[in-house]
């Protein structure tokens, strides 16, 4: 009977589906495989860089790598930044991480705790790699787990037209000058604000880039011996300073749910005179408002500060999966990306600063904004104390919660910092 045959087929199909579902996990545990060609290794490289680089640029770099390393193929697994993070978390949990992964410094500690990242120090030593050319290495317990490929600094952006209109003759270098400039800009009216501060808890990196940057710019720290120390006088000074700007209403309204993208939009549209932002957004700002005249400068420090200024940065980092069966080959890819010419090429394409100290990106000599930023970068110290900390994003969110209550007048600065400190200590304890 046809009905019965259909029923039989349905059972077979259902069984096949179930088996496929079960088998999928097992197959995906091997993120790289030997090819049929005998000895060909296919490396998976998960990152968010490809969509952010010009179309085909990263693939072309991979093609060059494949041409120079016979027997190694690279499969790019690309997605947006946030999606990459979640993919890597899930893959690390299930042991199906790609051989090579793009990393943000804020993720490293958690992945190391998970046992998901390979010890790159060991791989460098096995490959007799000279690491003196690396600008930075993200280490935990003395071992390297991430190497920054390109760094994106966060200087102060100023709208020079607005500053001139407000009668501010020079870019502020101290907090007092910054307050004066922000006040003058706000007085221009027409919904113009002096500064913009995104504090959305959805993506709380405003705490890193726009709040703690004031601490680092004055050579201070939010940590002591690697442990939380947000109740210190330097953090308190930065917090009270920002509160004074908030109370003076020189900060663009809507901070509590504002995101980084909103910040860039406000500046690009000429509604905000100053912002702290990634150099990676220069192209976007120019594209969206070609007539906007702006410059970059170091983040203002406390009055009278003469030491080296810390400049916040974010990295496109790279690491190798602990479960990779082809770690030596994976390290060859890392080595290639960190080589002088290739690293300069990636940095140029991404408008970041190179992770290889000997590389010089080509845009530095041809563009005044980038040249100024490169000078600030070289004269200051890259500073991002969240890199390598456990649950870094949660630390930012914990601080954000308390800081918003303080700005809103619901608690004192001491209460805010004490509660943030307590939350951080708990987070560190895991």
């Amino acid at each position, binding site marked *: 009977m046809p009905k019965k045959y259909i029923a039989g087929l349905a059972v077979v199909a259902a069984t096949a589906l179930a088996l496929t579902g079960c088998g999928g996990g097992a197959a995906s545990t091997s993120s790289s495989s030997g090819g049929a060609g005998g000895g060909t290794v296919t490396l998976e490289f998960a990152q968010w860089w490809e969509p952010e680089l010009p179309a085909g640029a990263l693939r072309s770099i991979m093609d060059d790598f494949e041409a120079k390393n016979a027997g190694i193929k690279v499969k790019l697994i690309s997605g947006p930044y946030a999606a990459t993070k979640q993919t890597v978390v899930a893959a690390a949990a299930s042991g199906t991480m790609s051989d090579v992964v793009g990393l943000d410094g804020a993720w490293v500690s958690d992945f190391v705790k*998970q046992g998901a990242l390979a010890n790159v120090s060991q791989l460098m030593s096995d490959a007799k790699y000279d690491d003196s050319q690396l600008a930075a290495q993200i280490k935990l317990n003395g071992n390297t787990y991430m190497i920054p490929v390109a760094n994106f600094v966060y200087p102060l952006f100023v709208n020079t037209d607005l500053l001139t209109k407000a009668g501010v003759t020079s870019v502020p270098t101290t907090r007092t000058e910054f307050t004066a400039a922000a006040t003058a800009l706000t007085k221009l009216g027409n919904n113009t604000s002096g500064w913009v501060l995104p504090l959305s808890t*959805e993506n709380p990196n405003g705490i890193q880039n726009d709040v703690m940057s004031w601490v680092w710019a004055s050579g201070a720290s939010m940590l002591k011996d690697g442990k939380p120390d947000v109740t210190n006088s330097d953090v308190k000074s930065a917090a009270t300073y920002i509160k004074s700007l908030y109370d003076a209403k020189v900060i663009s309204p809507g901070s509590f749910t504002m995101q980084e993208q909103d910040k860039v939009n406000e500046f690009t549209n000429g509604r905000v005179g100053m912002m702290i932002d990634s150099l990676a957004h220069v192209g976007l700002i120019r594209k969206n408002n070609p007539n906007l005249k702006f410059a970059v400068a170091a983040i203002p420090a406390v009055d009278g500060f003469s030491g080296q200024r810390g400049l916040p940065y974010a990295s496109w980092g790279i690491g190798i999966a602990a479960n990779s069966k082809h770690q030596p080959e994976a390290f060859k890819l890392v080595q290639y990306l960190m080589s002088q010419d290739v690293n300069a090429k990636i940095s140029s394409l991404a408008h970041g600063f190179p992770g290889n100290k000997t590389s010089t990106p080509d845009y530095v000599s041809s563009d005044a904004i980038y040249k100024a930023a490169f000078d600030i970068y070289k004269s200051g110290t890259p500073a991002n104390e969240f890199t390598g900390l456990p649950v870094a994003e949660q630390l930012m969110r914990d601080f954000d*919660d308390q800081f918003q209550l303080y700005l809103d007048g619901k608690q004192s600065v001491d209460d805010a910092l004490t509660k943030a400190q307590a939350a951080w200590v708990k987070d560190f304890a895991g």
Partner: protein
Amino acid sequence: MSGLKTATKPSARAAGTRSQLLGKLAPYGYVAPTVVLMVVLMLIPIVMVLGYSLMDNVIMKKNPQFVGFAHYIDILTSDSFHGAVVNTLFFTGASVIAHLVIGLVFALLLNTDLLGNRTKAVFRMIYILPWLFTVAIIAILWRLLLAPNGVVNYVLTSSHLIGSQIAWLAEPQYALLAVTFINIWSGYPFYMTSLLAGLQGIPTELFEAAKVDGANPLQRFVSITLPQLRPIVISMALLDFIWTTQQFALIWMTTGGGPLNTTEMLSTFTYKLAFSRYQFGSASASAAIVLVISLVLAFFYVRAQKARD
């Protein structure tokens, strides 16, 4: 011939038994694909999440510890969870009531005899528009509209209804109201279309008989329209309640649970536990609590459906 007969009898019996067996198996064959899908895609993940909720450091460490109901106790006694429950109840309750009222009013407008069919078609298209946008578009649209420099503030300040710009999604006193408003705006067309279908299904004889008996429009609405729509209203309100308690994307993309946790919902609370704190055990416990709440609501929904049948 008799030898032949004895040879065919057992084979005929065997064929009959096989056919009977196949006949008995056939229904299982039909439901097998669904059962397999339900087991693989629902039962197994649910059981895994329930298992995770009893373990500590699950996923993040290779050797998680069994902690029993510790995560449940932590969550049920946490202030953040209580806040999320209150916010979720307000958000859901206000959304469901407003969806119902607005949906019903618009459905009545579209069902009226006072307007021509072409006019009604135009309005039907306008009213249904919010339903056509995806959550991401709705979130972006309203973020722009409600921004301090957005259209809403421009209109309100220009018409002197407010003195200065208001950051609707960023000020603690307005944020929950603002996201609830957005959710109401995006969800009423579902009610409107369903209720319109219900209205069109009410026999006209009922209204004619009531008219003959001297019932005024309000009496006809209360005594005929509402009782006739009751089964649809109950089913939809319960479904909407279930869906709205689980609303995540809209909240996440507009406020992220802020400012000052004033828009923190059960969904964002759970998400943060998992993907910000990496506490998958606690997140699983929170998800299990949400599952229980949803099951209770689903029970009422199924009961309402049965009563309707």
